[in-house]
């Protein structure tokens, strides 16, 4: 039995319903909320602010620190042990790298920009939701950025190529599955994050990434709307 129809009736290139809002955390210098399906992420940006311990400072340019955190109740019933773990550390690191390629921190030597990503609810694609939220939050913080970053997971379920896998698809057992989070910039379509879990052929991978590109465009529109909406009316 092969996977020919997505279990929730979506088209192969159809994303889950999205929602985005900018400026949700008043205390932060910049903040954003991004929701895709049942996965939602809050991102708060603080800074540029001074950085201690001093040995972490870079006199050439500012540094970016990301923290990805799933809240204890964010899973599907099981309590998630709070705090950092190996998975969260890795995701924090890749988030940082995927955002750093658009950020210009030359103006902030010895300082730090902190990005906190909290996920109150997760159902697959959480690192992508986190990156989408963080990208909007960084823009909201007034930082110099070349472009926005949008991210989505693509992959195969059985023999079908799909975008934005949900948990049931990630956990599909009757065939091979590959889950590939991709992050891209808008203008140049540079890939700033590409990871993979599962198995896939080269041809399929190339096709999947192309699908991701189209999906990122859709996400970009949502991010753009949210950002403009916050500042609309402000001259």
């Amino acid at each position, binding site marked *: 039995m092969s996977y020919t129809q997505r279990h929730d009736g979506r088209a192969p290139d159809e994303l889950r319903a999205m929602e985005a809002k900018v400026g949700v955390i008043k205390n932060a210098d910049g903040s954003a909320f991004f929701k895709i399906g049942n996965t939602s992420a809050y991102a708060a940006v603080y*800074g540029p602010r001074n950085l201690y311990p001093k040995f972490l400072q870079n006199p050439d340019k*500012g540094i970016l620190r990301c923290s990805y955190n799933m809240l204890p109740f964010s899973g599907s019933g099981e309590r998630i042990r709070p705090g950092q773990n190996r998975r969260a550390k890795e995701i924090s690191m890749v988030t940082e790298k995927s955002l750093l390629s*658009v950020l210009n921190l030359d103006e902030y030597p*010895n300082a730090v920009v902190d990005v906190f990503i909290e996920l109150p609810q997760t159902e697959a694609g959480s690192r992508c939701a986190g990156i989408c939220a963080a990208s909007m939050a960084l823009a909201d*913080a*007034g930082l110099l950025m*070349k472009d926005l970053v949008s991210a989505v997971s693509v992959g195969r379920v059985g023999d079908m190529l799909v975008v934005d896998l949900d948990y049931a698809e990630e956990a599909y057992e009757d065939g091979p599955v590959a889950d590939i989070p991709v992050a891209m910039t808008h*203008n140049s379509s540079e890939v700033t994050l590409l990871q993979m879990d599962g198995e896939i052929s080269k041809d399929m991978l190339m096709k999947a990434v192309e699908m991701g590109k189209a999906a990122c465009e859709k996400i970009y529109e949502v991010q753009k709307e949210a950002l403009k909406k916050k500042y609309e009316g402000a001259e």
Partner: protein
Amino acid sequence: MSEIVVKEKEIVIPGQLLAKGMDTFPASGSYREKEDIFSGRVGVVYIDGRAIKVIPLSGAYMPKVGDVIIAKVIDITMSGWRVETNSAYSAMLPLKDATSEYIQRGADLSSYYAIGDHVVCKITNVTSQKLVDVAMRDPGLKKLSGGRIFSVNTNKVPRIIGKKGSMVSMIKQATGCRIVVGQNGLVWIQGETDNEFIAVDTIKKIEKESHISGLTNRIKEYLEERTQKKLEGVEENELHTKA
């Protein structure tokens, strides 16, 4: 053939195309990629001749030469005071620029400004490494005692001050408070307690509603309602400016 594709005062987001061709050039907040100019931040577009710049609408304060700020003394060194500027960088207040008085060699510096004091000072120099110098030799630059200090969005400071200080002087007139608005987003208010509250609420209101037109008028009405007094001498033309 070059062409500007955005309107003046339009809100743009990072990576948005602003202009095509080599006849225009990017100023602060925008960058060129091949022949096109893109926005480098969220902000408002200003077209100044051939230069296109994007003015930020949000974000933390960055020290700039000439800004009058409210800073907090955090350390006392051999040669002066170190002050915290509500930004990523602290500033140095050297002895010679600290007061108009003569400071004796070996004098106890904390008797001038102690740790924890707030001062109004002016930024005199910012280096590429963001080493900041401040001075307090101009009139109006002083140590703040009493009153209350709170922070506002740095990008809204020009609106709180108003054209030639019209907004802040209206609040001063209505509440009888002494007010200092620092460019770094710190505001100091001193007066009768009830009036202090009115002044704080008014400034918060300006911060929140600064983008809605007719601000001066609305604030005037708000102040009259809160103080139950008629405000005199607010000129008609000021009521229509959008600062």
